[in-house]
């Protein structure tokens, strides 16, 4: 017999609903407020204009896209490894850092010799290649040393090993290269804007978006079209059956880590292009954000990771201004939340927690039953 709505409404459900509603309220109230900054109260409809011109929103959107495509590239590594081993590779963010940091020395050497601006595309390709090779090497060593011996261990054990590996990588690089920020050299042709159809877009951001879209397309083709890619998908579907079908599971896992590492290394250089500096701790937060992106898109799902990354990037760049700046609370914040950009990570983490609570299968994922989670 179906129980009535009130009977089913437990404390937990009420609490979860309240949580959802309050987030929704913040989003709606804040957005309304932002778009009516000129009006006296948030509810009167005046001319529905924000204090920001449309091109500001567009800039934010493009910035979000470029940031998001970097997240998406990192997220691929998380999602592929999780798909196969059901394990969070906590150190993946540091693989990203390792690629960016090592390639920094090549880029700096190019910068000193002038090669950087003499043949910018070749030098960028070389820097990207070095980052990808380093990151792949580190990802493979990581797999061999920290994860492979633990493949049959209970699930908490590899996670803790991964946390250990993350610390080890961060502080090894700190020991090698010092604890300061290093300024990434700039490619002259990537400074300034390109004007496309009357809209100015920062060149670095365009380069980042294009490069990561190309890489993702290549990767997607690899996974969908090649024999190795098919083997990868088979292993992530069912490891044991795949091994019965004659697939060398060890080899597939190594390849997965390698590809994930390469994508992360490339992402590292692209990230450094946008933010123009590297640091030994730079991988930590992008790593967690990329994991969020992977969960958001549905973990284990490659297109999901890409979409999740873009989504997260856009939310993070647009969110603080859209949701928070106009969030007027009478008596406390009469003109909206001060310094909303400080809270962009709060938005990302709130999204993470909400996805985990309310839709652990993510936007695209339906494969992940509670058993696998």
């Amino acid at each position, binding site marked *: 017999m179906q129980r009535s709505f009130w009977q089913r409404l437990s*404390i*937990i459900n009420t*609490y*979860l609903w309240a*949580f959802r509603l309050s987030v929704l309220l913040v989003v709606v109230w804040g957005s309304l407020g932002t778009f009516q900054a000129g009006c006296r109260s948030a509810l009167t409809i005046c001319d529905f204009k924000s204090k920001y011109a449309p091109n500001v929103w567009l800039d934010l959107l493009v910035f979000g896209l470029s940031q998001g495509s970097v997240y998406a590239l990192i997220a691929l590594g998380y999602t592929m490894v999780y798909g196969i081993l*059901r*394990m*969070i590779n906590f150190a993946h963010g540091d693989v990203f850092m390792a690629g960016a940091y090592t390639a920094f*020395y090549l880029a700096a050497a190019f910068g000193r010799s002038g090669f950087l601006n003499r043949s910018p595309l070749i030098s960028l390709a070389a820097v990207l290649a070095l980052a990808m090779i380093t990151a792949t090497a580190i990802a493979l060593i990581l797999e061999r*040393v*920290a994860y492979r*011996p*633990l493949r049959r*261990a*209970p*699930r*908490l*054990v*590899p*996670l*803790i*090993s991964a*946390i*250990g*590996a*993350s*610390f*080890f*990588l*961060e*502080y*090894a690089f*700190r*020991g*090698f*290269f*010092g604890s300061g920020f290093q300024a990434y050299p700039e490619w002259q042709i990537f400074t300034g804007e390109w004007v496309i159809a009357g809209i100015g877009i920062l060149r670095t951001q365009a380069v980042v978006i294009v490069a990561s879209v190309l890489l993702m397309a290549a990767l997607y083709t690899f996974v969908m079209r090649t024999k190795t890619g098919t083997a990868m998908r088979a292993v992530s579907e069912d490891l044991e059956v795949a091994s019965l079908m004659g697939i060398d599971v060890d080899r597939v896992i190594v390849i997965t880590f390698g590809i994930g590492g390469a994508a992360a290394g490339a992402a590292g250089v692209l990230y450094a292009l946008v933010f123009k500096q590297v640091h030994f701790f730079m991988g930590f937060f992008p790593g*967690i954000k990329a*994991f*969020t992106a992977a*969960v958001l898109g549905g973990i284990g799902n490659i297109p999901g990771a890409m979409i999740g990354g873009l989504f997260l990037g856009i939310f993070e760049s647009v969110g603080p201004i859209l949701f*928070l700046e106009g969030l007027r609370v009478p008596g406390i*914040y009469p003109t909206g*939340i*001060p*310094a*909303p950009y*400080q*809270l962009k*990570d*709060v938005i990302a*983490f*709130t999204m*993470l*927690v909400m996805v*985990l*609570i309310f839709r*652990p299968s993510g936007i695209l994922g339906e494969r992940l039953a*509670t058993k696998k*989670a």
Partner: protein
Amino acid sequence: MRTDRGSWGKVISGGLIFGGAAAFVSLAGMVEALGVREIVIGVIDLGRLLLLLIGLGAGYQAARRGIGGALTALARGLLAGAAAGVGLSALLVLASVVNLRGMFINASPTLLEIISFGRGTAGVPLVIAAGAVAGALGAVATLLPGAVRGPLGAGVTVTIVVGLFQELLQIILQEGGIRSAIRQFIFVPEGLPPRGALGVFLVVLVVSAVWRSRQPVVRGWILKRPPPQQRLVRLLGLLLAVAVALLLPLAGGLFISQVLVLVGLYTLMGLGLNLEVGFAGLLDLGFVAFFAIGAYTVGLLTSTGQYGIAHWSFWAAMPVALVVSLIAGFLFGLPILRIRGDYLAIATLGFGEIIRLLALSEALRPWFGGSQGVLFVPKPIIGGFEFSGPAQIYYITLASSVLIAFVAARLRDSRLGRAWMAMREDEDVAEAMGINLVNVKLLAYGIGGAFAGMGGAIFAVLLGSIFPHSFSLLISINVLALIIVGGMGSLPGVVVGSLFLVGLPELLREFSDFRFLVYGAALIIMMQVKPEGLWPAAMVRRELHKEEPVGVVAEEPAAVERVEA
């Protein structure tokens, strides 16, 4: 023949890996930075000792793995040590060809001097020879019978420890007739001279050898006593530990008490997290949030500064902090009740970061002080006695740790504790057995959070001010690491873990730069070698060593799945 060659190849590649490790610690800066601390004056410093240990390790592992007689083992050790020397020499040669300093900031001339015995590339044969000697010594260690190896190892270890902590020991042994006599016998003002080192080594050697031969007799004697007397012996041991704990800050001075307070605070947090992770199997990476909540509650209630709201005394505010963090645990636990395993770890990490970012933000600054924090938190006062510094606050920490440990031990053996452990082993089965998962989980979050809140409350008065930067994710990870190193689910393990992971690095100040490097390596190695921790809980120990006849528990097939979330 081929297999033989293959095994020799393995010896060489194993040695080269150790050589790579030596080059790694050199480039990461450890050798030079640790070289400042002399172990035995004029003989060896900590940096060189590290390299020596790597050489010994190369020989040890090569000799242990091989088959064959003593001579083969020695040869294997020699070869592996030489290979390690080759690996380290590669760094020397490389440094002489290219300028490594442009990339590796630690590849300094001083480092190269240390490695090459001051001879540059000409030192390469010497490095290889030194590696071979160290490797052979390591191999010898595998050949010695236990009755010799044990005392010898104890002697060397204690000598190193005495040399390492010479400053501290000198402070403790500063005054008093017998104490200063011991000090003058062992130390000179600058540290541990070779004469003192030899003395310490010999004394420990003899004591350890005697104890080794007598131990079974003493043990047998104790075991033959009737149970009440056995309990008395155990009680005496406990009393001794309490007495040491009470007297340590008096003997050790300010620095020691500071370290001890930190150890105590981490023990408090560790006990709380142990309850969540070790007992109930709920992996929580946002644990620092409760610590922060406890600290902010006390700070806001007692502060005499701008953000203080009540100007209460610490003693009134602390119970409130406990209750607030208990409630926070419930609220925090409610939405994530249905999340399991790795996802739970990430969700809690997200929560912890949200709390920190909010405390740091400009938006909540009118209440929490933003990045400037809450200042002017007064010290606790009891009947005119002010707990003014770490030496006094240590006793608050000690008292609350003992109290909390007692509560945790009682909880572990209670019905609730059993329910937690059932849930840890398998949630679905536990639910089928009639355990109310919602209540049990919420209680785990709430009580665990309250323990950490207590730690936070003491932290607030210890510093006298609260900054959101103190509540970073690193704290959560530190706490997790210490309960894993100590032994998941084990109460003494928490204390052991915080002594090792908090106390030791604090004492070795030169080490602080490499603390997390060593942490990371320790966690990886620990998970492979000793996943049950240094002082595992009795049940875990029984599960992991099935061969010992201990009744029904050993027959459980869930041996390794105990920590499954």
